């Protein structure tokens, strides 16, 4: 089945989310769709699934124009979505999840679970998905859950599969398996749209690539002739450098030392399992790992947001195991939190207010009870210039900025003071390529000024590119450590450690 978008336009108020998008999706082909957050990818996909209806333009299936009016219409026409956040019911079995909504039934609406299981097995066989039909979803690893999602759309006889950031939650090894499945689907004549912002993946798997920027298709091409640099330029609109230029690290004294730190949840399960690590001044230490393996808790332990159950944390010679967040802050610890909306900024506060969230109490801004807004506004304006935060005014609510500018605002606030240790958690999540480049440079600059820098990220590229040393976390433990001076760590070995293979080499 071929699908064609012709001049598809969608507006939200004055914002044009999709501006005359033309796109061809062909049977037996993988179309890589690249674009930054907010480029209009999801709007386009939502129009294809029937959730939104286009303001202008049309969708043609096999040359015939179609009109989608509700969320079910896309799948009815054979266009299936695999969402980035899985749409699976954790306490139900694979078979139940797959047939939900189109259940095989007997008399009185009796659910024919035997038939459902057989149907799942059939698709399993055909596309070699190897999904156990009777397992509960919550007991399956993420990679398998994703296959259940794929099975779900195949079960609804979709001929076009739209995969939204499918590799975001996978380890490098799982990505490899996943690409195998995509290949099988392609050979079976399915059309596949692979949405991502990871350049090397799109080059590896696609037959054709389209790039979306600010709602418009800004480039199309053949992955055989395109390079990552070309793609990045199409995405951002200007040349981008990938490798953050940096001198070799000059590690100095120990800035942060965690020894045997454990953290428990309410049910006494180990969240951090005897974690020991060191960060020295003048080096960038990366913590790699698939999301949800204790990285969040690690950062909470270091910054004092959560209490540790046992172990010791020493910051530049002082024991801070029980120190409060503000004490750590005052000692020179900067924290760029993983979710800026949850803990990095207040969306409804102005840019100026957000800029002083960590220092409003200092005598410079506060005289007695009153805050000197004059000074706050001046400082904020200066930070905006220094850190390239693009906002028409410091009086605009922080939430109104783009993701990249919000993040730069947080980075500015955290780095623009005397720091000794920078803890950056997912520092470039949901940030445009241009801002990523900038934030990376600032982190390296902090290192060169003699700070210890700890970067926690689930993007392996980010870790490999920035770090001088790499720890890998798995299941709440540090399972491996790699020396990455001059980028010499073995990407494959790091990937294996992320997947929980225990033969991590010691540096």
């Amino acid at each position, binding site marked *: 089945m071929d699908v064609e978008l012709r001049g598809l336009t969608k507006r939200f108020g004055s914002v044009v989310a999709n501006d005359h998008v033309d796109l061809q999706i062909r049977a037996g082909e993988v179309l890589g769709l690249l674009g930054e957050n907010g480029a209009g990818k999801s709007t386009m996909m939502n129009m294809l699934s029937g*959730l939104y209806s286009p303001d202008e333009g049309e969708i043609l299936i096999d040359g015939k124009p179609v009109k989608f009016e*509700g*969320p*079910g219409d896309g*799948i009815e026409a054979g266009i299936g*979505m695999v*969402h980035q956040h*899985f*749409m*699976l*019911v*954790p*306490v*139900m079995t694979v078979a*139940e*999840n797959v047939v*939900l*909504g*189109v*259940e095989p*039934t007997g008399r*009185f*609406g*009796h*659910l024919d679970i035997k038939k459902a299981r057989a149907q799942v097995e059939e698709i399993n066989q055909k596309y070699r998905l190897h999904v156990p039909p009777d397992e509960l979803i919550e007991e399956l690893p993420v990679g398998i859950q994703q296959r259940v999602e794929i099975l779900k759309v195949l079960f609804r006889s979709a001929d076009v599969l739209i995969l939204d950031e499918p590799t975001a939650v996978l380890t490098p090894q799982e990505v490899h398996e996943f690409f195998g499945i995509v290949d099988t689907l392609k050979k079976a004549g399915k059309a596949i749209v692979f949405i991502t912002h990871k350049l090397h993946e799109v080059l590896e798997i696609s037959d054709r690539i389209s790039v979306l920027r600010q709602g418009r298709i800004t480039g199309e091409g053949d992955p055989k002739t395109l390079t990552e640099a070309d793609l990045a330029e199409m995405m951002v609109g200007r040349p981008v450098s990938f490798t953050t230029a940096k001198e070799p690290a000059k590690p100095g004294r120990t800035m942060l030392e965690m020894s*045997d730190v*454990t953290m*428990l949840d309410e049910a*006494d*399960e*180990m969240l951090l*399992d*005897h974690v*020991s690590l060191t960060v020295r001044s003048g080096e960038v230490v990366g913590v790699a790992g698939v999301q949800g393996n204790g990285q969040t808790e690690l950062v909470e332990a270091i910054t004092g947001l959560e209490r540790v159950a046992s172990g010791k944390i020493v910051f530049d010679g002082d024991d801070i195991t029980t120190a409060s967040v503000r004490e750590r802050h005052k000692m020179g610890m900067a924290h760029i939190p993983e979710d800026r909306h949850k803990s990095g900024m207040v969306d409804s506060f102005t840019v100026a207010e957000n800029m002083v969230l960590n220092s409003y109490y200092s005598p410079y801004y506060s005289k007695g009870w009153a805050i000197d807004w004059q000074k706050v506004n001046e400082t904020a304006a200066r930070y905006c210039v220094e850190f390239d935060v693009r906002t028409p005014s410091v009086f605009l609510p922080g939430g109104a900025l783009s993701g990249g500018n919000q993040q730069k605002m947080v980075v500015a606030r955290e780095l623009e003071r005397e720091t000794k240790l920078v803890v950056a958690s997912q520092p470039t999540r949901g940030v445009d390529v241009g801002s990523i480049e900038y934030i990376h440079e600032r982190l390296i600059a902090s290192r060169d000024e003699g700070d210890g820098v700890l970067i926690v990220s689930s993007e392996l590229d980010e870790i490999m590119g920035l770090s001088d040393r790499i720890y890998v976390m798995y299941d*709440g*433990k*540090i*399972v*491996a*450590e790699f020396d990455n001076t001059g980028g010499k760590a073995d990407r494959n070995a790091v990937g294996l450690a992320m997947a929980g293979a*225990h033969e*991590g080499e*010691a540096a």
Partner: protein
Amino acid sequence: MTDATTTGATAREEKLASANSRRARIMGGVLIALALLVLFTLDVAPGESATFRLTTPRDAVQIGDLVVPGGPFNMIAAALLAFLGVRQFLRGGARWTNISLGIGLAILVMAFLVWATAGKSFSLTGMLQATMVRAVPIALGGLAGVLSERVAVVNIAIEGMLLAGAFTGALVGSLLGGWVGMFAAIAVGGCFGLLLAALVVTYRMDQIIAGVVINLFVLGVTSYVSSQVFAEYRHLNNAPTFRSFKIPILGDIPVIGPMLFNQNLFVYGALILVAVSTYYLFHTKNGLRARAVGEHPRAADTLGIDVYKTRYFHVTLAGMVAGFGGAWFTLGSVGRFDENMTNGRGYIGLAAMIFGRWHPVGALSAALVFGFADSIQQKLALLNTPIPSEFLSMAPYIATIIVVAGLIGRSKPPAANGTPYTKE
């Protein structure tokens, strides 16, 4: 690194093991204390026996009375409790802790009954029959809770729905007869279900507050009418009641017959509703969809299941079930409405739902436990035990607390329970 890994694993096991054994020890201690309680407080004078009557002289099949020598029985009970306690204290596993406690409580109840009946006779079958009857409103309340919480709507309003059903049953029943009264009660319950659904699904009101508002509203209106109108016009509050009828053959089985097959419409109705809703929720297409809506509404939505409609439907259904349960208080029991006559049964129904792990059969079983506690206090009052009747009437509520807090621990509600759903 590998060093840290292995010590980590063992430390985790130790930690878990120590948490479990701590709980096991506490439970062991409790059981040993119960053993001492049975031995010293529930001691029966030597030679006295407790007589449990299993059949009445009018029954078709006659079996003899169960005569239990009080002293030896309670000695054995104490010994069993002590054994369980010591075993639990020394090496109790996680799985055994709950089982031991359950068995222990059952032994305690038996010992207590023997002690209270010593030297007298007591109709065991009568008590079981009363247990069933008293479990009905709780079971139906619990079932209403299951139906609405399975689609993720927390239903505090069950209490109000029961009360509204009781009131409507009495009023309409007095005017137009029992059957019309019953259907009117179901309809009114359904209306309150619909109201709750509108408040929490369409208007996204806080579910607890919406429920409390309905409860207060119903309490206020029914209390006003009963004190102002019913007091004046007594014929408006004098409904016929549904008599119990025996199911042929099955009703003649000793003990079980009177309990299950010689009851009124409401008992049969509750049993049938539990069976039907179990089948519905777990073996039909729409049941699967309803559960999906309660667990992951967004997923259901993307598959073309209408989350709002599903919630409206099931919450209304829950209201109808609760309305039927409410009619039990008047049409199935005394035929007359009294102010606040449900007296918290709706909340106990919610406890039964939680204890029953959001399953209809579970809710019924839990309701039987509460019904048992309820009927035991009533029967014991007749036996002239030295325990003050005020304490005895606390029994159902104490049972609720013990059961919800101690026995079940943490059980898992539907994942989306209590959260409104907003379409994108």
